[in-house]
């Protein structure tokens, strides 16, 4: 109960900080909205191959949902935590009677939640404007529930992947390179940002379904497009949980070892 109060207070504090620098939200908006709109334009102007299962309506729904899901599963840990190791401010967090990483996690969550202030209206308005070209008849409450669960688990997974990478900041001066390798182009490719995973050729799709990236973006949207049956949804949710468990273990080990070498330089 004490931790819950502290978490809510921390979350509220981060909301206030973000709103103080609300100009930065504009930058976030550009980042979240621009690429999906570009990609939607690109996909709508292609001459499709015979094997491509997606119609224009599928692409529209997919890229309409990308900004919201991309934001909800986003994690800023990899930018914030290594900085606190470098400037020594992690030392303060370690002395507090509060989980040291909770503040960084809640900052990331607050940032994601606050972007919904414009993302949800944008998505609803855009959805309304292109309602004639969208197919939504398949959406049911259980399907929406599954998509919500997939978003929550996908967000947790991305947080743990980013967290594991960011914790290497105990040893590495700059973790952005490692992040670029493990969480950059490979995520954009296998996560379904550039190409919806469902439209991959069979052998590449099988690889994408084994890797964790699909579950951070594409999977919740695939549920919403109604193209997955209940077995595939359950399989996807279980795979997300397994990957989240693996990265939780990795993060825990890296944290324990990292703390032993942390010498609060710069602080």
């Amino acid at each position, binding site marked *: 109960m004490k931790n819950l109060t502290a978490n809510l207070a921390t979350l509220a504090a981060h909301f206030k900080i973000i709103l103080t620098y609300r100009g930065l939200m504009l930058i976030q908006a550009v*980042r979240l909205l621009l690429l999906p709109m570009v990609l939607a334009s690109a996909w709508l102007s292609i001459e499709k191959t015979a094997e491509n299962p997606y119609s224009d309506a599928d692409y529209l729904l997919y890229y309409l949902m990308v900004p919201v899901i991309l934001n909800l599963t986003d994690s800023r840990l990899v930018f914030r935590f290594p900085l606190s190791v470098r400037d020594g401010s992690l030392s303060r967090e370690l002395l507090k009677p509060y989980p040291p990483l909770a503040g960084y996690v809640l900052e990331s969550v607050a940032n994601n939640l606050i972007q919904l202030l414009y993302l949800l209206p944008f998505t609803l308005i855009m959805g309304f404007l292109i309602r004639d070209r969208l197919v939504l008849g398949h959406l049911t409450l259980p399907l929406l529930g599954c998509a919500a669960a997939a978003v929550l688990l996908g967000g947790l997974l991305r947080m743990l992947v980013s967290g594991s990478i960011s914790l290497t900041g105990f040893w590495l001066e700059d973790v952005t390179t490692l992040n670029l390798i493990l969480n950059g*182009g490979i995520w954009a490719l296998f996560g379904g940002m*550039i190409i919806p995973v469902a439209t991959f050729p069979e052998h590449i799709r099988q690889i994408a379904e084994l890797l964790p990236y699909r579950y951070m973006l594409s999977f919740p949207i695939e549920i919403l497009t109604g193209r997955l049956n209940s077995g595939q949804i359950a399989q996807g949710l279980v795979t997300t949980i397994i990957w989240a468990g693996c990265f939780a273990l990795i993060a825990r080990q890296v944290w324990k070892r990292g703390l032993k070498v942390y010498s609060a330089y710069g602080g």
Partner: protein
Amino acid sequence: MRQAGIILKLWKASIMQALEYRASFAFSILANFLDFVFGFLQYLVFFTAAQSIAGWSSQHMLVLYGVFMTVFALQFIFLYPNLVAMGEMVNSGSLDLLLTKPVNAQLILSLRRVSFEELGSLGTAIALLAWLAWNGTIQMTAGNLLLFGLGMTSSLMLVYSLFLFLMSLAVLLERLDDAAQIMWSMFALCRYPADVYPSRLRFLFFTFLPVAYLSSVPAMALLGTASPGLVFQGTIIALMAVIATTMFWRRTIRAYTSAGG
């Protein structure tokens, strides 16, 4: 000449600093090379679901990717580290110190740091373009190469204009941690040919928000499909953009009263 000498010394310091952590430097080059490869794979996978994009075949799209990555890598090497440092300079007050020095502040702030981590991408992008020239996708005529040279110059001038605009914003807003994100978002618009956009957006991208000249037009020049008029139009727009953003920068610096003021 004196300013160039100062910049060269600053670059030397940047390189020496990077080489202090040789393993990290080599690792960064490898990471950026891998990022290029994943970007390349994206195009290949893209064309398993598409036969062409707005009339551009997969080979044409590779030319666009090569040009896009060349421009992106050049901005990453010469401009990005300076843009990242700007926010901190404003907050820490070190901008004030630099403004009092007898140097051209715009030039020094724009070019004082270099980061060669994108050399892997730059090299691979040039190799990709060379391969496309060798297999005949790129039309290697003197006219095309001239138009490409002019198109690339305009592209780099436009990138610099955006960079200078963001530097000015960093001074005005006092906090612009993610300025590079805007820059990269603009680059997102250039990953695909301008032809993919609806006609009104396309008009915007060829005029008031001239992102079409960043990669599409130079790529069209290499493919022999760009008219000289289009390339010259890009050069005029780029010149106007540099002049406008330089004026905005000077105005911002005149109004600047230190981070607290």
